[in-house]
């Protein structure tokens, strides 16, 4: 142990120690495990027949996890008749009046077959989880 310290104190040892310090000062290396370690699978080349049909197969379904709470079931059953519930999670946090107007537009303008009591529940759910004061994810 004593011998090693002696080496470290020789001019060569000092030089090695300083060089080591310089390497550390110049770069930071060997760090892995970034917080975005995820991937998307590559798509295989499709097998086509030389006929008149131009088929690309199904589109991916990427339904988001909606916030837990009363009304979620109704949102999933009724809103998803026409569109993915990703339309909800894609929005910025919207004020209560805007959610009210959106649900009403879906019924009156687009003809969504939502009973009145259910519509109220859906609106309350959206206002309770996707507004500026309460949205979490």
């Amino acid at each position: 142990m004593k011998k090693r310290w002696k080496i470290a104190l020789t001019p060569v040892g000092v030089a090695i120690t300083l060089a080591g310090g310089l390497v550390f000062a110049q770069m930071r290396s060997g760090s892995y495990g970034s917080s975005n370690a995820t991937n998307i699978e590559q798509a295989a080349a499709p097998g086509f027949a030389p006929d008149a049909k131009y088929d690309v197969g199904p589109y991916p379904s990427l339904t988001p996890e909606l916030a837990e709470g009363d009304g979620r079931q109704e949102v999933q059953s009724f809103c998803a008749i026409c569109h993915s519930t990703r339309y909800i999670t894609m929005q910025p946090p919207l004020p209560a009046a805007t959610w009210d107007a959106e649900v009403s537009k879906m019924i009156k303008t687009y003809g969504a077959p939502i009973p009145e009591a259910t519509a109220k529940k859906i609106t309350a759910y959206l206002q309770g989880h996707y507004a500026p004061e309460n949205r979490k994810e």
Partner: protein
Amino acid sequence: MERMTRNISRRNALKFLGAASGGLALANWARSGRASAEVPDGAKPLESFTGPGANPHWNSVGPYVMEPQKAPLILLTDRAVQLETPRHYFRTIFTPNEAFYVRWHLGEIPNSVDLAEWKLRVEGNVNKPMAFSLSDLMEKFKAVSLAAVNQCSGNSRSRMQPRVPGGQWGNGAMGNAMWTGVRLRELLDAAGVKSGSARVQFEGLDTGAGPKGLGSNRFMKSLDLTNAALDDTIVAYLMNGEPLPVLNGFPVRLVVPGYFSTYWTKSVSWIRVLETPDDNFWVKTAYRIPDTPRGTTTPEDVKAGKVKTIPIGRMPVRSFLISPDGSSKIPAGLGVTLRGIAFSGYGKVVKVEISDDGGSNWKAAELGEDHGTYSFRGWQAGWTPKTPGRYSIAVRATDEKGNVQPDEPVWNAGGYLWNKIERQELVAGKAN
């Protein structure tokens, strides 16, 4: 995770916990290192939503997704399909087909088109209704090609304050392609438009589960027959020299140069001449802008019922810095090249200027090759950050009609027409 813990034995569970706490310790070490030395996590995921403030990112914040015939694009919604083009694809003047953004309105869109059955019909108030197969279009009419920008009316909607509901696009709901096809006027002439006709309506394969007669069932758009844009309009069967991806409107889509994409009907299958105004939802109610300068208004005026609206039309002038994009720190004194694109639906872009002090002083950038009035125009400018610090690079374009990109925001209930001057922060570090 739940299933995993349930299946491991007690001994393994202890091992697992040991590894987990080791991992935690490492993570803490890395975190403390980050705090002291300001080491960034260069691949840290974005937040899952933005708001109620404006989206501060160039693109929207969704995850990447793999869709048929497409490169990984940014997901807005999966049904209807809405995908945004990542910023780096705008390094080229022509946006690759596989990276071109996607925006359908309704949920029931084609997975397959049978060209033995498919026809483009020209009908309504015409002397001789026609039905063209794709080979008819390819063989019986002269092919024309033109470069044109296709931009969603709601591109950059996530910038609006207050935020408005709708597709929360960043800047990537746009693309430029070389479109090849046949002139709309030739198809109309073949059918013979009767006198007294008012509008021409376009319908594609954008359909939904909603009740008949409502906007949730069929997507249709129309323009006045006298609209000069129709003289430039083509029915395109090639996009950058290749068939259109199904998600971009295979087999043919309408190309209305200078106009927002809402008129560029995908998989257009009916061209209908109308004698009367078009009162379908997508014309009468949707895609309308305030009849004010720049189409801007306020939530208060909308609420008070003061806002008269008109259908959206041409695209206001815009420009973008594409690279550098802020993902690299630039050593002070190192000369780099700022590059980007510009376009206008009102005419050719004639000037692009950049500022490195956020918009106080401007200097002209060099314009790239002219690919046509309605194409992206590339630009570049050399730039050297002389001293370390934070720089705000601003870019603004001017078109041949004298329209200059303004620095004031736009607000309207639809979230349309955003064209405020764009800014990018670039950080210059010490070089010694």
